[in-house]
């Protein structure tokens, strides 16, 4: 059974579906998946994300998380524990003044045994690589570090799924790398289901599956390789494609035979080497 499932999900902020923010969305996300949701501002991607742990409830249709309906009041707390959310602005998510106290905030509120909290906090900080900052003042950290502390705060609740709403939009390249590395690790080592909302193509390229949203609808839903082949379509809805994909697109116009689906540095180097070698062999 799908871990997260939306069935005919439609949503309007004022309940009037004639200008819906989400229109008839049907997606299934399995446990352990790493899904990126791409789209420009206003495409509905954040609105969709907020349905996945019951922050917003469908105007029509249904969303289930691990078998629980998000519209069920009694299940809500359990749903939030199962699927935690990280937001864009790192400064809005820190609640305590000391790093480890911040991470302990949620488990403390769940009434968990102090010894268990100690263990969870230490593990969570270790996972996000922030152990040596555990006694630091949280507001003095860099943006990337704050986001990792926010992620640790979720991990201390032992969620099965983490939803991240543009977690790197306000970070510098170093911070972005730290956070992306942490996200990948959570997925591959801890088997946590990841839903990453982003408009950075290079981040989406790291996921195993990319859902492209446009005007409240799912436009594409496939592997990054397949999605980025649609360079023309993506550009027409205001999205970028990775530079490598664009280069392949242009080389084809010059009658140079290259595959279209080239989304990483390494793949691009390999392809370019091949076309340069090809000529040497013919000579």
């Amino acid at each position, binding site marked *: 059974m799908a871990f997260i499932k939306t069935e005919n999900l439609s949503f309007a902020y004022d309940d009037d579906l004639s200008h819906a923010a989400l229109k008839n969305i049907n997606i299934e996300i399995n446990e352990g998946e790493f899904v990126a949701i791409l789209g*420009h501002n206003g495409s509905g991607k954040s609105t969709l994300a907020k349905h996945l742990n019951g922050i917003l409830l469908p105007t029509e249709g249904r969303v289930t998380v691990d078998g629980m309906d998000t519209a069920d009041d009694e299940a809500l707390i359990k749903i939030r524990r199962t699927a935690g959310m990280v937001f864009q602005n790192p400064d809005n998510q820190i609640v305590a003044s000391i790093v480890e106290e911040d991470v302990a905030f949620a488990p403390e509120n769940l009434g968990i045994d102090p010894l268990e909290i100690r263990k969870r906090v230490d593990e969570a900080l270790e996972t996000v690589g922030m152990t040596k900052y555990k006694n630091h003042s949280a507001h003095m950290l860099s943006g990337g570090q704050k986001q990792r502390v926010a992620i640790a705060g979720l991990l201390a609740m032992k969620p099965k799924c983490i939803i991240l709403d543009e977690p790197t939009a306000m970070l510098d390249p170093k911070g972005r790398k730290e956070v992306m590395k942490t996200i990948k690790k959570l997925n591959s080592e801890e088997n946590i289901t990841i839903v990453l909302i982003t*408009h950075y193509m290079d981040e989406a390229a790291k996921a195993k599956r990319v859902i492209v949203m446009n005007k409240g609808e799912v436009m594409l839903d496939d592997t990054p390789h397949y999605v980025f082949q649609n360079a023309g379509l993506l550009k027409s809805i205001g999205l970028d494609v990775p530079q490598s994909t664009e*280069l392949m697109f242009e080389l084809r116009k010059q009658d*140079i035979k290259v595959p279209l689906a080239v989304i990483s540095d390494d793949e691009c*180097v390999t392809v370019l080497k091949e076309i*340069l070698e090809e*000529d040497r062999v013919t000579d």
Partner: protein
Amino acid sequence: MSQIEVKNLSYKYGVGTPFEVTALDNISFSVEKGEFIGLIGHTGSGKSTLLQCFNGLLKPEGELYIDGVNICEKNNAKGICFKVGLVFQYPEHQLFEDTVYKDIAFGPKNMGLSEGEIKDRVCEALKFSGLSEEILEKSPFELSGGQKRRVAVAGVIAMRPEILVLDEPAAGLDPIGRDSILANLREYHKKEGKTVILSSHNMDDIARNCEKVLVMNSARLEMFETISEVFKRSERLKEIGLDVPMLTSVFEELLKEGYPVNSGIYTVEQAVNEIIAAKDGGKNA
């Protein structure tokens, strides 16, 4: 005489406290009128501090000449904020008036312009930012994030600054919002011949728009060169916590493995030309 001349500029925060930290360490460079300059550096490298010195907000040590006037000297900073327009990071957080019109008019009003002139300036700035007149009577707080950002930029443009300084104007915007703000800046630069200084974490934005780049690293000026010279030193950029465009790394790698390509490639167009040239070269060999 250069329009901007920075000589031995230093700035420290929290002087005399245990938290004293050097944000700018002996910086010198000059900018000619009409140049489009990029400013990059890791978080905490001093970018924002440097930008805030340009319009007299901070009082650094050293000399900073704008059109020959040293604004670090007492009383010289007056009026400099009209000549150098500074757009802060997340400028939409600073909207404060109850209508968009009043917010954009705030700068021109403080310049002591007449009502008629203020109105012209507001309309001009509005057009520049690609906003429609319908929103003039709206509250800035009911606009979308991208619109707020444009209103904030319009408020600075309305002062018709000779030098426009922007601290990460595209941060947090989607590709459409980003492209439209940057296109507006290019136009302001091209049509009006004004100087633009732009900081960004996005190397592609820098590569596409700027002629020269200031690279800051731990309070010092690490490089000040043309885009392609800067991207030729991609190893060093990575060392100091910066990214380079994807294709720059790709061509660096090809070069390392002995293929006949140049370094300092950063646009798709350049890359296509490089590959074609390398293929032809291979045939002739």
